């Protein structure tokens, strides 16, 4: 069907990602409709949309997570499709189903694919059965501490304890012994219960927990895939996301400086197989853990949506992933060339203190973004805006692209120095520190890097 049938497009998200999606939607000649909470009324994404609808109070449960209100906004504005961005309702299979049932186009994978991959236990088993390598772990949900202890001894300490639903590293921790496991299990149970509550009782998300072998010196490397309506699944290179604090990404780069060409090739092939196994349609990400000592990898999880760090892939491939999502939603199979060029790095500019990484919301009194050749900034805020405590701390993504990693690092140093943010606490000083760190500079780092910088 022609791309025009998707418009107007309602963007069910906020901040930088809503703004980024609005740009592409408008470029494609379609009307962009924003939805927002009372706390976000003054933000750029609300101004830049062709039309904006107030959903409700700041609390996400009463605004961005309220499926009924989002669907009502679509009806009231005559929207023909919904793009969920990431987070909020993006991986809520019941919402995707409700969008389709309302006669709208869902710009994302089929609800069935979301449901199958949303449960990490199910996803892990599905991948194992498809021949994709997985870490030793539990195939059934762990429902009590006794089972957890038994499983941990079978797998062998240290183990990673995480919730089957949810994301963003919440509720996830490593246990090195039985005492540690008790704590980790309690933390995961608490998070699981909260996810179950937040999921408004639908979808596969429940208070289930899984355990997996913990890889000591691991890199987090993920593959961007795109499933096309003609049945092909294309891998668009990888992103290395090993700079993390609290299991959440801070910096991502492509290509990964820590894997051999052979390992890259087998990861890309496995990601395509993963996508084909679930008949995946649209943009998705297959997350893997790479054991740096053994140079092998295991499947971690699949994210059935656009990823925060997608600009890294856009910079090295020259593609617009949001545009591709729209084409796929319209039933088209564009001729996507998976070739990449140069090196790209993204820095997440968070409203948090650069030492302990604790949240630091506040009013932005000064905001000046860097610019110039090979510099891209996707931001959600401007001078005078309030960064509130209600949502995640991401204020902007500073991305650089150059012919080589060394040149990208130089470009990043200059851009980080140029970026002025005053008011909220921010982690730009951490980004500068990281760029001067020999381990990051060498490219030979793993997910323990930030922890080592802070001990």
């Amino acid at each position, binding site marked *: 069907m022609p791309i025009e049938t998707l418009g107007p497009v309602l963007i069910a998200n906020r901040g930088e990602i809503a703004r980024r999606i609005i740009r592409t939607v408008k470029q494609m000649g379609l009307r962009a409709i924003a939805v927002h909470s009372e706390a976000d009324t003054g933000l750029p994404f609300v101004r830049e949309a062709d039309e904006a609808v107030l959903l409700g109070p700041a609390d996400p449960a009463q605004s961005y997570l309220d499926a009924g209100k989002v669907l009502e906004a679509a009806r009231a504005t005559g929207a023909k499709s919904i793009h969920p961005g990431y987070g909020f309702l993006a991986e809520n299979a019941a919402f995707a189903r409700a969008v389709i049932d309302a006669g709208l186009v869902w710009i994302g994978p089929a609800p069935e694919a979301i449901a199958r991959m949303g449960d990490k236990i199910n996803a892990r088993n599905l991948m194992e059965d498809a021949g994709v390598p997985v870490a030793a772990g539990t195939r059934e949900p762990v429902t009590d501490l006794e089972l957890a202890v038994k499983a941990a001894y079978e797998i062998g300490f240290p183990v990673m304890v995480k919730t089957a639903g949810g994301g*963003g590293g919440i509720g996830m921790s490593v246990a090195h012994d039985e005492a540690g496991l008790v704590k980790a299990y309690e933390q995961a149970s608490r998070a699981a219960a909260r996810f179950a509550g937040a999921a408004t009782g639908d979808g596969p998300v429940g208070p289930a927990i899984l355990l997996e072998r913990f890889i000591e010196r691991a890199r987090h490397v993920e593959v961007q895939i795109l499933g096309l309506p003609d049945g092909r699944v294309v891998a668009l290179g990888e992103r290395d996301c090993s700079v993390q604090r609290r299991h959440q990404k801070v910096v991502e780069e492509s290509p990964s400086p820590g894997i051999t060409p052979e390992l890259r090739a087998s990861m890309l092939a496995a990601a395509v197989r993963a996508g084909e196994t679930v008949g995946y349609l649209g943009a998705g990400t297959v997350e893997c853990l790479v054991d740096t000592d053994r140079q092998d990898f295991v499947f971690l999880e699949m994210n059935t949506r656009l990823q925060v760090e997608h600009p890294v892939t856009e910079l090295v491939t020259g593609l617009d992933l949001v545009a591709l999502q729209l084409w796929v939603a319209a039933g088209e199979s564009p001729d996507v060339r998976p070739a990449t060029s140069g090196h790209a790095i993204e820095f997440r500019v968070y409203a948090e203190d650069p030492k302990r990484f604790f*949240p630091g*919301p*506040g009013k932005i009194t000064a905001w000046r973004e860097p610019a110039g050749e090979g510099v891209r900034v996707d931001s959600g805020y401007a001078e005078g805006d309030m960064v509130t*405590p209600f949502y995640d*701390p991401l204020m902007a993504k500073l991305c650089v692209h150059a012919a080589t990693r060394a040149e990208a690092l130089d470009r990043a140093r200059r851009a980080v120095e140029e970026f002025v943010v005053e008011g909220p606490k921010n982690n730009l000083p951490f980004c500068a520190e990281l760029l001067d760190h020999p381990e990051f500079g060498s490219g030979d780092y793993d997910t323990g890097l930030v922890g080592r910088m802070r001990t």
Partner: protein
Amino acid sequence: MAEVRAEMVANVWKVVVQEGDTVSDGDTLVILESMKMEIPVLTEDDGVVAQLKVKEGDVIQEGDLIAVIE
């Protein structure tokens, strides 16, 4: 007497103690939530919770009084 104050703008997600409770150094008084992160607020003193100034669901500002330990 020791005052426990908020280090940042946050929502009060969970109140763990009640006025009159006996607490010791390192005990969690309340759990705040800001920017999708849970932040436990601990006492650095031994004593009794003499005053508890917040309840679940409150939005508190940096510097706001959370509790008084005596």
